[in-house]
């Protein structure tokens, strides 16, 4: 059974409130939804709310998922993205980095190297991260989201088009502009 069919079968089980199937899907998708949401809003509180709401929607509305239209990953990213956009609209702009950011880095990290043992290296890592985060946050909303989905989440342009309701040409244009803007700010 290929991966997509297997996921569709799990979603079907979730629609009849099978907690084991739901946990399996959380194990597979929660970390990537968390990473995407955090990079989009740069707030641990909002990330937690959005991730929780995304998976509660899966739990309560799994029967609305149509595997013929999109992969489960695409569907979940679309839900998370729309929730983030709703929050953006409500709060206008969110702070680029949370106040407790430095403390969190030393707990555990997703794709970091394990060299944050000394205060010096932790500070250096924090500084670099802050610079990149600032540059990403400075991008227009669509460019940022398309770049995150392509570069960090590994989606194809077609999948990004499905998430954003955009043509592949529009996705490519946003992607190229995002990288050009980042090059100007970071290099």
């Amino acid at each position, binding site marked *: 059974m290929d991966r997509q069919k297997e996921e569709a079968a799990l979603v079907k089980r979730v629609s009849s409130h099978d907690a084991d199937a739901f946990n399996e899907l959380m194990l597979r998708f*929660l970390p990537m939804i968390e990473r995407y949401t955090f990079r989009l809003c740069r707030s641990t509180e909002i990330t937690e709310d959005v991730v929780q709401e995304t998976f*509660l929607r899966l739990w309560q509305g799994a029967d609305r998922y149509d595997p013929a239209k999109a992969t489960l990953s695409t569907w979940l990213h679309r839900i998370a993205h729309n929730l983030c956009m709703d929050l953006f609209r409500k709060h206008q702009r969110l702070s680029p980095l949370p106040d407790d950011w430095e403390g969190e880095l030393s707990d555990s990290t997703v794709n970091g190297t394990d060299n944050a043992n000394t205060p010096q290296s932790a500070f250096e890592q924090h500084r*670099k991260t802050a610079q990149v985060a600032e540059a990403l946050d400075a991008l227009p909303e669509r460019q940022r989201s398309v770049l995150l989905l*392509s570069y960090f989440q590994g989606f194809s342009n077609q999948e990004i088009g499905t998430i954003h309701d955009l043509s592949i040409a529009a996705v490519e244009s946003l*992607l190229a502009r995002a*990288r050009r803007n980042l090059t100007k700010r*970071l*290099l």
Partner: protein
Amino acid sequence: MSEQQRLIQLLKLYGSDVDRWPEEDQHLGDPDMFDPFTLEVWQEARRLDQRLSEDVIPNRSSEMRWRIHNLISAPPATFTERWLLPLTEPWRPALVHALILSLGLLTSDLVQDSGFVDSTDYDDAIVWAAQYLGDIQP
């Protein structure tokens, strides 16, 4: 589109990591075969990729998974839990306060009906004290 133009387009869209390129284009990604201009574009794309890889983010997945699991495993809320305890909707505390006020007014009516006479009169106070001490009969 020439091979060089396509290469530059790929570098500008996806960066220097060939694994991120569409599968059908990955055979183009050998830097040893690049002309000087393409090599320059490739180096710039690689420097940007290195900077982007510095974006380290916190990981709270297991905590969140646990919290969501607890949420879906919780038994369905009772009527009281759903309507009276989570007083987050603005009209709900108003409803509770209105109920308490109504209860207070009703109780007050009952107290008056019991024949109890409220007084701040000085002489009455002396009489009540005398009755309490048993000096006089009510």
